[in-house]
């Protein structure tokens, strides 16, 4: 009976505020309608539907009257196009085709991490210094390929959008990473990395010259820089030192910056939505993430279980459907072998096989639904208080406003 519950009882569950497989139901409308909600962050492991959910939520909020900006990260090309995002220019663009009768509006932007990083440098250094930094190979490597730069820059951009004050609601997508935790960890990692002991040691010689450096560097540390220069080459080490010194004197407070944005995530107007596919790995990640949010006192709005399979034909169980398919294949075989004369107007062998195919498909779908329910139940028994909303797997990709509205409807 599992499948029926998904279809028919879903509406009933709503009214009792219970979602299908236990746990309170998540309703996003009250969340996005609440003027105190200023930031919604969509997190989750790779490929689960973070970008789609963020865009759908932002569109829904805008059409319900709020002035919204959505910060997307690497959206699918067609989705980006349908939101009017034709180039990666790091500024919010107005999304065409949004229903504005309730007075809201929607802007969207794609994060350009390198440009965001460059802008920080340009803002904080005089032009000559900025040029030095931007040209340094280490800076270039850091700003374009350091694991975590994308996360850091997403946070940075969020801080900027928030600081600008012109948005009523900011919806944030997060970078595709294996673990949702990366979003929280990477900025601090980068921050402490740049503020770290080693960086300070490395920057010392370049900053105060040889003699001062000696005072600062113990013999042991000297040996290590020596070793380091052997490994990376003196030439490279000098590049590192110049880079670090430049960073250090222009804005030593990398970690401070990261900390400030981190605090923003703990503020009252912020809500996290954890997106997950109904799969073991994704839900395990989601559970970790929920625990982490709790530990950090970050406000969790709930879990979006995306791409859930449904059926309206649960009365035909997986076992019976599979058995029926086998029967039909046997019948078709008998017919072809001439053992059975087909009834005058009865189905042909080919027809029988077609129906058998459908029944096999149905059996597989039910099995999948069963599996999905089991992993979901496991999650809700560990986290019974986390509100959950299910979004069905739509038959096609979600790549236009219509599709986003459909997703938004399911989120509501």
């Amino acid at each position, binding site marked *: 009976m599992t499948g029926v519950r998904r279809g028919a009882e879903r509406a009933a569950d709503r009214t009792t505020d219970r979602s299908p497989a236990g746990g309170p139901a998540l309703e996003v409308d009250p969340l996005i309608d609440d003027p105190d909600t200023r930031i919604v962050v969509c997190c989750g*492991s*790779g*490929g689960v539907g973070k970008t789609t959910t963020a865009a759908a939520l932002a569109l829904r909020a805008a059409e319900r009257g709020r002035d919204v900006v959505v910060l997307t990260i690497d959206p*699918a*090309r*067609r989705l980006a196009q349908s939101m009017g995002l034709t180039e990666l220019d790091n500024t919010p663009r107005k999304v065409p085709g949004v229903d504005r009768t309730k007075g809201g509006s929607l802007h969207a932007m794609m994060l350009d991490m390198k440009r965001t990083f460059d802008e920080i440098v340009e803002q904080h250094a005089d032009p000559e210094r900025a040029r030095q930094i931007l040209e340094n*190979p*280490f800076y*270039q*490597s850091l700003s374009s*390929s*350091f*694991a975590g730069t994308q996360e850091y820059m997403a946070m940075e951009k969020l801080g900027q959008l928030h600081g600008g004050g012109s948005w009523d609601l900011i919806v944030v997508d997060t970078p595709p990473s*294996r673990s949702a935790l990366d979003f929280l960890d990477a900025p601090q990692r980068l921050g402490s*990395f740049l503020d*770290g*002991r*080693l*960086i300070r040691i490395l920057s010392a010689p370049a900053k105060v010259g040889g003699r001062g450096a000696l005072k600062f560097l113990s013999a*042991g540390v000297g*040996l*290590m820089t020596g*070793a*380091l220069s*052997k*490994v*990376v*080459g003196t030439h*490279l080490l000098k*590049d*590192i030192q110049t880079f670090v010194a430049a960073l250090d004197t222009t804005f030593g407070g990398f970690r401070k910056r990261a900390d400030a944005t981190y605090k923003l995530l703990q503020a009252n107007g912020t809500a996290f939505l954890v997106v997950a596919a109904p799969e*073991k790995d994704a839900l395990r990640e989601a559970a970790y993430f929920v625990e982490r949010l709790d530990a950090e006192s970050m406000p969790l709005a709930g879990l979006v279980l995306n791409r859930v399979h449904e*059926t*309206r*034909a649960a*009365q*035909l169980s997986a076992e*019976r459907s599979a058995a*029926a*398919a086998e*029967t*039909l294949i046997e*019948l078709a075989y008998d017919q072809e072998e001439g053992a059975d004369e087909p009834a005058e107007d*009865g*189905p042909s062998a080919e*027809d*029988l096989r*077609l*129906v*058998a*195919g*459908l029944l096999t*498909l149905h059996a597989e*779908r039910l*099995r*999948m639904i069963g599996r999905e329910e089991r992993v979901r139940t496991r999650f809700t028994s560990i986290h019974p208080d986390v509100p959950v909303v299910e979004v069905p797997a739509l*038959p*096609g*990709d979600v*790549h236009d406003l219509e599709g986003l509205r459909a997703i938004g409807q399911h989120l509501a």
Partner: protein
Amino acid sequence: MTRVTPADRARFVPAEMVSLDCVSQATQHDSPRAAGADTDWEGVRLHVVSGKGGTGKTTVAAALALALAHGGQRTLLVEVEGRQGLAQLFETAELPYEERKIAVAPGGGEVYALAIDPEEALLDYLDMFYHLGRTGKGLKKLGAIDFATTIAPGLRDVLLTGKACEAVRRRVKGVWAYDAVVMDAPPTGRISRFLNVNTEVAGLAKFGPIHSQAEAVMRVLRSPETAVHLVTLLEEMPVQETVDGVAELTGTGLPVGGVVVNMARPPLHADDETDTGRALNAELLEAGLRAARVRPTKALVAALLKEAEEHAGRIVLETQERATVRGLGLPMYELPLLADGVDLGGLYRLADALREQGVA
């Protein structure tokens, strides 16, 4: 005949030492498989498996290593992202930084696995070249190793690719330690950069050990002994990434291998990939259900037809995406979506499917 296990043979041979001579060996290398075998990747000894995140890189890499080990070969599966995905897949304890036998293939083949830890690799490397001993540990404490493997542009990737290359070229008593090495590589978005990092580094570090190692590794990666396979799903984003990835790899001069379409849904008619089940109608379905002794209630028929229609839509999309992949003109393999997920048994089935399609 007692064979020494590859893990016994070499702990860490710096890539520099091995890959430098491997280039000269490349021309005279012995065929990894029995004479007369006829497969698509004859002569390829390093299989790099990339693809969009979550498409099944780890799964396909493992299945490929099993397939290549079939019939008495010995393969090494290399993990570079530090996620212990292989251990999970093979249902074993966490892999240490050490080559370990992880599975056997039908016909006496063996699959070894290695999770490369860049920090450990760097320490080994330092020890080997500079005999750093305790200083190495001190460097680690200070965060220097972390620093070096995270920020020094690509040093981490140099170590990872270098270690893989070393395993590819390792010889014991004149024969290859491994018949093939399969790498569970970073995703498409980073693969060209990852593999090409040695070019970049060779440019940055103009002299010194890193420079020469980087150059040597690059020669191997660009050689016909290497093939970079891309895993995709028949969905818009992964296919787009595959197309972009192939262009980028080609542009970078890296050898593109095949495309593995993973988790493909079978059409209703198994022998016709374009069959969408559109021919189904209520009447036909009712008759079919009756023939199978299932009562064709209106609700059931309507619901099943809806499922057929959704499936049809999906198949149409998949057919379009498949055509795009086909347009790349690369060898293409297809692995089915396993309804119960991938367990160890499923992995062997996927390996068989790869073999049937001529991969190994």
